[in-house]
Every structure is written in C-alpha cells, then in structure tokens.
C-alpha cells in the first residue's frame, strides 16, 4: 500500500518525539513462556475487571484460536471491528489501527504483540501499531511470548531448534509500564494442549512433537521468569531508569552504593543487593574517607566496618576512597569502573546544614552525568547517634574560656570607644573578636562568642544600659544581623581552618610519599629497602611495622625495623600468609581477620605479592582509618616495587655470574680435555706400538716408548692431582692440619721428591741458621713448593739457577722461589694466580693453569699471602708467607733435656 515504510528506529524516534507532546498511554504486557499458557485469557480477565469498574475497554484484536473460554470472555466486552485484507486470493482479518485511534478508548486490548501484519498494512508489525496507539494516549493490554523477544531469539532457537521470525525489539518490552507473567507448569500446559485447548487437535499433535517438548517448556519457562523478574524487581524498587531510552541496548550493569557510618547504610546495602540481583549485575560498596570521617568516633567507625563487612557478605566488592570531595570521588570512581547506577541514601541532615555544608547527594545528582543515581530514603531509621558531639564535651574548656575572655576584652574596648562612637559601631569590635576566636579556637568557641557578644553588647551598650531590655526596637535588627554574621563567620572560618588542615595533611602525606619514593629508588639492597620503608611507615603513622617476606620454601621471614624492633607474634603469620596468598589486606581495621593484632597489607608488585607489611597500631587507638590504610597501601606499593627492582637487579647479576661461570666451565673443559687427551694419546700410541711390534723394535726404541709411557702417566697423574686439589679447595673440603715444624724440612722433602725433574736446573737453597718453627700443614705446603718449583722448571731455561730461600720475620716466615726465566708479563702479577690462567712458555706446553691457583688457595687457607714479581735482573720471584700464629710449643723442657744430654752424652 505504501512504498516507503518507516523503519522501526525512525518510528521509535518519532514516537518518542510525540510522547513528549502528549501523555503517552501505558503499556501492559501479559507475558508467557509459550502459546497456551493462558495469556489472552488473563488479559481478557483483567480487561473485564477494569471494564466493570467503569473504564472504557475495547477489544482491538484477539486471536481466537477457536478457544471457547476465551471467546466467552470477549463477548462481554466492546469489540472493534476487524479490518479485512485480501492478499493473493486469501482473505485475512487484521487489527484496525485507524479504527482504534478513531474510537479512542481508555484501554485497548490487542493480542499477540509480535504479530506480523498482512502485506499492505500501515505498519509491517503489530507492535508498531501498538506504539502508535500508545502515542495517542491510549493504554494498551497486549500479550507476548518469551520466544518473541529479539535478544532471546538465539537462545530460544538453541533450546527448541525452531527459529522464531516474529520478534519484538527489546526496547518495546523494556518500555512496557507493566509486565504480568502468566505462568502454568509445563505439565499443565501439555495437558491443556492434549485437551485441544490451545490449537485445534490436528495442529496440536504436530506442535507437541516440535515445540512443546517438556524439556523445551522448562527452559522457556525459566527464560520467561527471569526476563520478568528483571523487570519486576526494577518496578518493585520504584526506580525508573532516567535515560533508559537513550540506549536501545543496555550495557552490562554495575552498581555502586555509597556507604557511611549511618545505620541507614545497612538498608542501602541491602537495597542495592536486591537491585543488583535483579539486574544480575556486580556491585560495589564505596566509602569515601574524608578528613571529617577520619576523626570519626570509635562507635561510628565500628559501624562503618560492619557495613563494609555486610556488603562483602552480600557479595559486593568494598572500596574505600579518600578525598575531601565525597561526591566528586564517588563519581570519578564510578566512571573509572564503568558503574551504571549509583545508589545513595537520602540525606537526613537539616536544610540548614545542606545550605552551609552542601549536600553530597545534590552534588552527586548534579555531577553524575549519564550515570543513574538512585536516592533511597532512610525513613524509620534513627539518625546516627551524635557521638561526635558527646566526644567534644570531653574537650578542653580552655577555648571556651578564651571566647569568654575575648568578649570581655571587646566589651572593654567598647567602653573606651563608647564616648566617641555610636553603639552600632561597637558591634564591629565584637565581630572582630568573633573572627579572632574562630580563627584561634574554631567553631564552637566562636559560636559561643557570637552569642555572648550579642548579649554583652545588649547589656553594656544598648540603652537602657546594664539590662537586657532594649528601648529601641531597631536594635533587635542589629542583634539579629550581629548574631547571624557571627555565626556565619564562625562556620566559614572553621571550614576554612579545616580545609587548610586537610590541605596541610595532604601536603604532609605527599611530601612523605615523595621522600619515601626518593629514598627507596636510590637503594639497591633488599635489606636496606625494607629498613628504609619501615622507617618511613613508622614515622608517618607512629605505629610499629614489620615486613614479612616468603623464602623459596614459602616460609615467612620477619624483617623488623631496627629502632622499634616489632616482631609480630607467630599467630600473626597466619594472617600474613593469607594476605600473601590473596593479595588483599587483612587484619585489624579490615573486614578480613579483624581480630589480628596488626594490619597486614600485601606488598604488591608487578609479579604479585612479594611480601607482607604488618603494621601494629597502639592498642589504645581505634582501628586504622581507611585513609591510613590507603596511605599504607601506597607505601607498601613503593616498597614492593623497590623490592622487585632489587630482586630483578640481583637476578640479572646472578645471571651475569652464571654466564661467567659458564665461560669458565667451558674453558676448563677445553683445557682439561686437551690436557687429558694429550698424555693419553701418547700412552696409547706408545703402548700399542709396543704391543704390535714388540720383537721387531730395537731395544733402544722400546725403552724410549716405555719411558714415554711412564712420563706421560706422571703428567696425567699430576693433572688429576691438581684438579682434585682445586676441587677440594673450592668445595671447602680441604682440611688444614697445622703442626709446628721447620720450613727447611719440607724444602728437603720437596727437593728429594722433585730430584729427577730438577736435574735440568741448578737448585740453590739459601736458609738462615735459625728458622723458627711455623705452624703449617706439611702435605699442603709441600704441594705449594712443588707447584712453584715445577712452574720455575717449566718457564726458566735449562741449566739456569732456581733459588729457594726463606726469611724469618716477627710474625711470619717468607719463602721465595726465584728463577731466571723470562719473568712475568707486566700487569699479569695478580692474574697468574687465577684459575685457568695459562702463561706461554718457550716450549709451548703450558699447564692447565691450576698450579698457581692451588698455591694461592692453600696459602690463603694458612692465613698467608702469595704474590709474584719480576726480579731486578731477570726472572720471576714467587713469595709466600706462613704466619706464625698462636703459641709456639714449649720446647724449653726438650731443649733443656737436650742440653743436659749433650753434657752427659
């Protein structure tokens, strides 16, 4: 009929526009899980009931399905004639939109909202007709099955295997003012189906087989109920989403409830939980810690903690924010965390208070932007007990005396002025006094001084003087203005003072955090970081603190701060362990394990919790305020980051060492394998030659081969011995058995042992007459001498002289092995004692580079020193000291006996 059919979105926009002009009709949907549950019946039942009350109800269209009961109901009501459409030879009956608009009843009954109109109708779909009817201000009753809701289309298709084409936009469903769920059990429905109450019997059988399977019905029923519950809960709470229409497709909901110490908060939390459950949305309970609440009395703080616990118990996430601007903090947090709804309590403060202090609820609604704000009333709740005021009574009386004094001084000045000034000007003196009092002592003394000032002024200066009576009524106005001005000054200066205090507090914290950051970032050592961090924590919060870190096995180690030395009790470790595992604070002042002595905060770094910060507040102080916990968390974060940085640095250092060790190991392997293989090859070669060509070889050749085997074996043996020694030295397995003995004896042993190898050189021994006994391990020092001599033989040319000498000193004996070789390359004096450092020899046969390293190890074990230097003329000199430690053995008796023996012998 019409070529251009408006698309649903455009239509919706148009409808919305119209809605703003005229009152829109109310839409009531009778909602069911499947056809046949009795929606139409229920709808007609409701319509009839309303009609009986005198409302104009007209039936626009009811699908008869040839159900007798339904039709019986229709009979009692006004029925709109149907529009007859013929299409492709078939005659169809449709709802007559024009007729309905013309008839304009109060309530129109239109069955089957999801119906698709016959081609050529005004709208493609019936729900579009209904929108138009609603827009005209007519209320509509309609029916809808769950499978027709667009967003559930896929789900239904999955469940039933049948794709439903006739769907209704979710927005339509959401815009319904009322939803009535019509529900019967699947068994009853099947029963009704079999009885032919839904479809004519022939259709029924097919329908049962396909759609009306019991499993399907159960699933559909759940779906319908859930859909209805979401709506019902929202309606029950009488909350309307203010901007619901802006979004055709609501994003995931997230609720935030503002919690305070007021008893009303518990109610708020429960209400939030109900709403959240209906929306299947996560929710947060947020408390904003502002300086006034930091000074909360103990009872309030306890109640606040209870509320936070309640929220956690009910499945909410609890958050404590700190800031002066409550509404600002809440809105900022809500935005950051994609909160869609904020729930707040209706303020119970007086209007006056709203005016002077501002109302956070008003601020909240003003600044919430696109976030919905729900205000829940606190009716029937008692306001928070005025514990704060009671506490103030305990305060020092001095400020009030001060206020009294100030008024007295002002009065005195007034007397001085009264001769020259009009009394009204003396008011200024009092106002000045009030200002001074409020600046000096704050609000309450200032209010006192306002009242006293007015009284004193009246008494002393307003005629008749020295009575409170007032002759001129004009003065009443003066009093009123004076009192009001005084009160405003009091309030404003007090607020100013408080804000300044808060600013100072923030400044102090910022400065402290900055100092902590700066110090921690300069530290590398783990222990120093912990100590510095703890120092800052104790300084800032005047509390004992301790850091607990887990070792590789998961055991906790305590690192107490030096000065206070707080060491938590063993049972506190369980709390610490919990904190470590969950990465959340616990202990005193939190909702987890609040009975603990200390507050435990996780030290969270990028890699997770690296430790626990345990803070013990003095027992007489209330549990730590959320702002303090927040500050601690920040400090903990700083410590954690520094610790992690130190750990990473340590790790990379370790890795470097590992790489070095790896290099060393590979150089050892190449050296050792070379040094092992060379003699082995010689031995194998010589011995196999002997075996193969035994008799054919001349005796000299055989002898030479045999000698080669013996020499190479000897070489191999020395190499293995060196490796073993090095291993024992490095493994700490080398035991030094010191005995007091003479150096000359061990030199003799070494010379006789090395006689064959030293034959190629001239060896000279230069020892002074009387060398003292020295404590040393003869086997080990023998090894040192052997290595030094072998070294000399290896590097010094044949026939050159090797000199062994010893020099006694008061505390040590120095032994020197000097050769006439090429000397040590400049700069290598230290390096030659390193493991696997090989020099180059003329013969080209350097050792594995262990000999001198072993010497150094052994001498060090003796507490001595070994060093090398080139001799003035040529060659190198190796010297080592053997310290004379402990008491030399008492040989007096022996010597005496020896002496007597000499005489008698």
């Amino acid at each position, binding site marked *: 009929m019409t070529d251009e059919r408006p698309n649903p979105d455009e239509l919706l926009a148009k409808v919305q526009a119209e809605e703003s002009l005229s009152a829109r009709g109310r839409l009531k949907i009778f909602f069911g899980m499947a056809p046949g549950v009795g929606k139409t019946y229920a709808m007609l039942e409701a319509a009839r009931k309303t009609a009986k009350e005198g409302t104009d109800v007209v039936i626009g269209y009811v699908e008869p399905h040839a159900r007798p009961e339904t039709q019986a109901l229709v009979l009692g009501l006004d029925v709109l004639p149907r529009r007859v459409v013929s299409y492709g030879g078939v005659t169809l009956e449709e709802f007559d939109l024009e007729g309905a608009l013309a008839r304009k009843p109060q309530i129109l009954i239109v069955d089957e909202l999801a119906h698709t109109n016959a081609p050529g109708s005004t709208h493609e779909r019936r729900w579009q007709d209904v929108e138009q009817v609603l827009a005209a201000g007519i209320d509509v009753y309609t029916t809808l099955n769950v499978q027709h809701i667009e967003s559930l289309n896929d789900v239904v298709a999955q469940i039933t295997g049948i794709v439903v084409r006739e769907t209704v936009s979710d927005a339509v469903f959401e815009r319904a003012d009322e939803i009535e769920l019509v529900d019967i059990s699947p068994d009853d429905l099947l029963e009704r189906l079999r009885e032919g109450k839904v479809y004519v019997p022939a259709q029924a059988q097919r329908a049962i087989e396909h759609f009306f399977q019991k499993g399907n019905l159960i699933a559909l029923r759940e779906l319908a109920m859930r859909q209805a519950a979401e709506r019902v809960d929202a309606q029950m709470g009488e909350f309307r989403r203010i901007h619901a229409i802006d979004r055709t497709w609501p994003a995931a909901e997230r609720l935030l409830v503002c919690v305070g110490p007021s008893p009303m908060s518990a109610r708020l939390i429960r209400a939030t939980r109900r709403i959240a459950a209906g929306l299947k949305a996560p929710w947060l309970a947020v408390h904003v810690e502002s300086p006034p609440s930091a000074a909360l009395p103990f009872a309030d703080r306890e109640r606040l903690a209870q509320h936070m616990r309640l929220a956690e118990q009910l499945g909410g996430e609890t958050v404590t924010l700190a800031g002066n601007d409550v509404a600002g903090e809440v809105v900022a947090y809500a935005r950051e965390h994609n909160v869609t709804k904020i729930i707040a309590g209706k303020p119970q403060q007086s209007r006056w208070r709203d005016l002077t202090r501002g109302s956070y609820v008003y601020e909240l609604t003003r600044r919430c932007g696109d976030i919905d704000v729900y205000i829940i009333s606190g009716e029937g709740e008692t306001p928070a007990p005025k514990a704060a005021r009671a506490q103030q009574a305990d305060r020092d009386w001095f400020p009030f005396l001060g206020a009294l004094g100030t008024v007295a001084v002002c009065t005195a000045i007034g007397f001085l002025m009264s001769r020259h000034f009009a009394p009204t000007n003396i008011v200024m003196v009092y106002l000045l006094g009030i200002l001074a009092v409020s600046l000096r002592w704050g609000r309450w003394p200032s209010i006192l001084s306002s009242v006293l000032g007015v009284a004193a002024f009246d008494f002393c200066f307003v005629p008749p003087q020295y009575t409170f009576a007032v002759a001129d009524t004009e003065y009443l106005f003066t009093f009123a203005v004076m009192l009001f001005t005084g009160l405003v000054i009091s309030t404003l200066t007090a607020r100013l003072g408080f804000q300044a205090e808060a600013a100072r507090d923030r400044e102090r914290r910022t400065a402290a955090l900055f100092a902590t950051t700066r110090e921690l970032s300069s530290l590398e050592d783990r222990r120093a970081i912990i100590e510095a961090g703890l120092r800052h924590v104790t300084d800032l919060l005047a509390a004992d603190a301790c850091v607990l870190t887990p070792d590789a096995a998961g055991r906790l180690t305590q690192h107490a701060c030096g000065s206070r030395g707080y060491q938590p009790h063993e049972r506190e470790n369980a709390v610490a362990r919990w904190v470590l595992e969950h990465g959340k604070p616990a202990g005193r002042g939190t909702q987890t394990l609040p009975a603990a002595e200390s507050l435990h905060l996780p030290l969270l770094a990028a890699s997770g919790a690296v430790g626990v910060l345990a803070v013990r507040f003095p027992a007489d102080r209330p549990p730590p305020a959320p702002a303090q916990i927040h500050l601690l968390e920040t400090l903990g974060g700083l410590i954690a980051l520094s610790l992690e940085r130190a750990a990473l640095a340590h790790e990379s250092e370790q890795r470097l060492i590992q790489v070095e060790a790896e290099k060393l190991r590979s150089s050892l392997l190449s050296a050792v394998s070379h040094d092992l293989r060379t003699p082995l090859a010689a031995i194998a070669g010589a011995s196999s030659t002997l075996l193969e060509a035994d008799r054919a070889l001349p005796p000299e050749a055989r002898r030479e081969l045999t000698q080669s085997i*013996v020499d190479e*074996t000897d070489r191999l*043996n020395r190499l293995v*011995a060196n490796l*073993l020694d090095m291993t*024992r030295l490095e493994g700490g397995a080398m035991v030094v*058995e010191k*005995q*007091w*003995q*003479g150096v*000359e*004896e*061990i*030199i*003799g*042993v070494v*010379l*006789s042992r090395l*006689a064959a190898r030293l034959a190629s050189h001239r060896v000279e*021994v230069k*020892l002074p007459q009387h060398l003292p*006994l020295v404590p040393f*391990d*003869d*086997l080990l020092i*023998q090894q040192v001498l052997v290595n030094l001599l072998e070294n000399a033989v290896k590097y010094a040319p044949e026939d050159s002289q090797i000199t*062994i000498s010893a020099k006694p000193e008061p505390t040590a004996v120095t032994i020197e092995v000097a050769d006439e070789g090429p000397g040590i390359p400049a700069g290598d004096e230290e390096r030659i004692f390193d493991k696997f450092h090989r020099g180059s020899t003329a013969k080209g046969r350097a050792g594995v580079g262990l000999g001198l390293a072993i010497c150094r190890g052994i001498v060090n074990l003796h507490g001595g020193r070994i060093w090398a230097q080139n001799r003035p003329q040529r060659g190198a000199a190796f010297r080592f000291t053997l310290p004379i430690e402990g008491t030399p*053995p008492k*040989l007096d008796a*022996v*010597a005496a*006996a*020896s002496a007597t*023996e*000499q005489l*008698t*012998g």
Partner: protein
Amino acid sequence: MSTDGPKVLVVEDEQEIRRFLRVSLGHSGYRLVETASAKDAVLQAATQQPDLMILDLGLPDGDGLDVIREVRQWSAMPIVVLSARGQEQDKVRALDEGADDYLTKPFSVGELLARLRVALRHAAQSSDGKAAIYDVGDLRVDVASRQVHVRNKEVHLTPTEFRLLATLVKHAGKVVTHRQLLKEVWGPQSVQETQYLRVYMAALRQKIESGDSVPRYLLTEPGVGYRLYSGGAER
C-alpha cells in the same frame, strides 16, 4: 718363575691393578694369591699362609683397617698398604694398626719391589732376633754397641737422639709414623708431641747428614712420619 719364591697375597678390587701386579711380581719371582674382597682376604691370609700381604685400603666390601687388625691378632706377616692420594689419615692409621709400609697410587713397580724387599727382610730379621747393624753409605750405626759413625768418624749423640736413630735403624727402609716414634722414644704419654720429634730430628740431621738441604739418610714422609734410607734404588 721359581716355585719357592715368597708367597704374596694381593688384596685389591681393581682387576687391572691385579693384572699388572701378577705380571710384574710374578716376573720377579713372587708367587701370587689374589682376592678382591676384604672378607676373603682374612680367610686367604689364614689358609694360604702368605709371606706378605699387599692390601688396598679402598675395598668395596669393607675397611682395609679391619683386615689389618684381624690379621695382626695372629700373624706378624708384613703388610704393605696401597692407598689413594688424599687418604693420608687412613694411611697413618693403617701403619699405626700394624701395617709395615705404604705406597700411594699410582706407584712404580720398582718402588713396590723395594718396599716388598725391605718388608720381607725385616720379617726375617725379627724372626732371627739378630741385633741390628746399619751400614749404608757413609753412615754406620751399631745399635748393640751404641756407636754411630759418619764417614768413619764417630758421632756423639744424646741418649734421646740415639734412641730415635736406633728406632729408625730397627725399621730401616720402612716408614715409621710419628706416633710410633714418639711412643718408642718418649713413651706412650707423648704420642701427640710431634714437635719434640721435629726438634730432635733436626738435631740428628745436623750431626749425621752432610749439611746439604736434601737429607740422604733421615727421610721425611710428609704427613706420615720418617724413614731411614736403607740403600737400593728405591728412592
């Protein structure tokens, strides 16, 4: 190859060592009885009645020291101990338990044969009960007449020095541990006072040795004890 050469019991678990001992000792006229276990060693020592035992201290099935202790209960047969380097303590204990001498692996056959000869000679002497006269090189010691000559010149020794020298002469060629020396010269209460020994040994060397820094007769075995040179090519 002679069938009446000294019978040697070799207790050694390494087959290759036994093999070369079999060849070299057999070639030098020794008859060999071999075993690889400590348990069997005592049995063999009792049943085979060897003239000498070569005992490896590092046996897999037991402590070589136990073998020495057990055998020493009923036999004075010479025992030469083989030990690895780094087993100095075991070596000294073996000697103190009654072993006659030791060799550190690896050792040369020449060295081994010399030790065996010394050990067998001492065994023969002690059974002869003959008074010892030591005459090697420039040094001559007559224990019975308490006379000591160096290069045919009599040397005066203090009584303790002489007792020390005499003890070494008694065991000439064999190693004598510090403990044994201290016990025989100074008595059982002085076994820890090794510095006595060192002082007297130094004094003795001054009188006997030529003054060269390499002693010829009074040889030091580091960590173990002393040995009096007894001629031959073993050193």
